[in-house]
């Protein structure tokens, strides 16, 4: 955290190789996560509905809560680390803010949409919302990783940027 906040050029340059290796792993994680969902057949509305089986459960299915519990940990760390690395990179504040906003909103939809049927039986379109959220979060985090990979440590940024 300190080297990110201080942003001394030499410290950022020293940190660049491990940070880029970490970002490569983050990309792998996101791609593997999408592949895992595809393997479970959860990249289509029918597969998602079969996975969470929300019907008849008053407070949402246990599977949906388990996915929310584990997903919040994963998304929380990715948003914190990628957002912080982006903040220390010479990228425009608008780009950084946009990527973080899209990723966070997508993550919230991804985690929360399977619980929507608990609000009303047959809540329409929750599976599509879930898939859209997952796509937005994954693409936003992938883009954040790639921007940080390209820009982190490239040059010192102004402290107030």
């Amino acid at each position: 955290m300190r080297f990110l906040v201080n942003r001394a050029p030499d410290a950022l340059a020293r940190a660049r190789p491990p940070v880029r290796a970490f970002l490569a792993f983050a990309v792998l994680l996101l791609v593997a996560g999408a592949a895992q969902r595809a393997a479970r057949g959860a990249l289509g509305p029918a597969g998602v509905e079969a996975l969470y089986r929300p019907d008849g459960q008053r407070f949402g299915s246990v599977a949906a809560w388990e996915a929310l519990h584990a997903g919040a940990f994963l998304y929380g760390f990715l948003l914190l680390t990628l957002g912080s690395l982006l903040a220390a990179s010479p990228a425009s504040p608008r780009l950084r803010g946009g990527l973080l906003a899209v990723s966070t909103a997508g993550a919230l939809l991804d985690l929360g949409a399977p619980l929507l049927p608990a609000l009303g039986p047959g809540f329409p379109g929750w599976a599509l919302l879930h898939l859209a959220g997952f796509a937005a979060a994954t693409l936003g985090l992938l883009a954040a990783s790639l921007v940080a990979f390209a820009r982190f440590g490239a040059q010192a940024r102004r402290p107030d940027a």
Partner: protein
Amino acid sequence: MRDPRLAPFRWPLAAFALMLGIGAAGAAVLFVRKIGLSPEAVRAFYLGSEAAFRRPRSLEGLLEVAVPHLLAVPLTLLVTAHLVGFAAVLRPRPLALFSGVAFGSALAGIAAGFGIRFLWPGLAWLKIAAFAGFEATLLAWMALLLALFRGAPRAAGAAVPDADDPAAPREGLVARPCAGLAAASQAGGPLRGTAVATRAASPARARPPPGSPR
């Protein structure tokens, strides 16, 4: 936010705090729905129940839950405590005490499951108490993270997060432990990230004259 250099990290921190809260809420719901909030329900979950046609938990099943939590929980607490300590929102002793309570309740919660199953069913109370304590500390950590970027006032003499900084002043300089980045920036000095401020004006603020109102 008191330190302008922390401003770019405001939204990543907010997103992390939000996800921390969501994860804690998910844990609470899962605890209530899968285990239950009474000692009898906790015992039935771990020891099995003929009435509910439930078998006792196996060692493999317990480890399947414990292993990811033994990674995720300390990592989350470490990062959160690090962020809160870095910005010196708490004094060192409350920070250490609070960290101890959080880590202790997490460990007790994880160990209690094994204890109920293999040692003594009476530990069901410990499981419930540890979970409640851990959830409470998680909520408090979340509040501290939010206070961190809302610029909550910092107590004088708070943590010295950058004490190992080679840029810190050495002999001959009047050093005062203060709040690292936040205090350095507040003192109006160059933003170098050192936690030991050497400002001439500092002692007056750090130690008010005897009898003066605090």
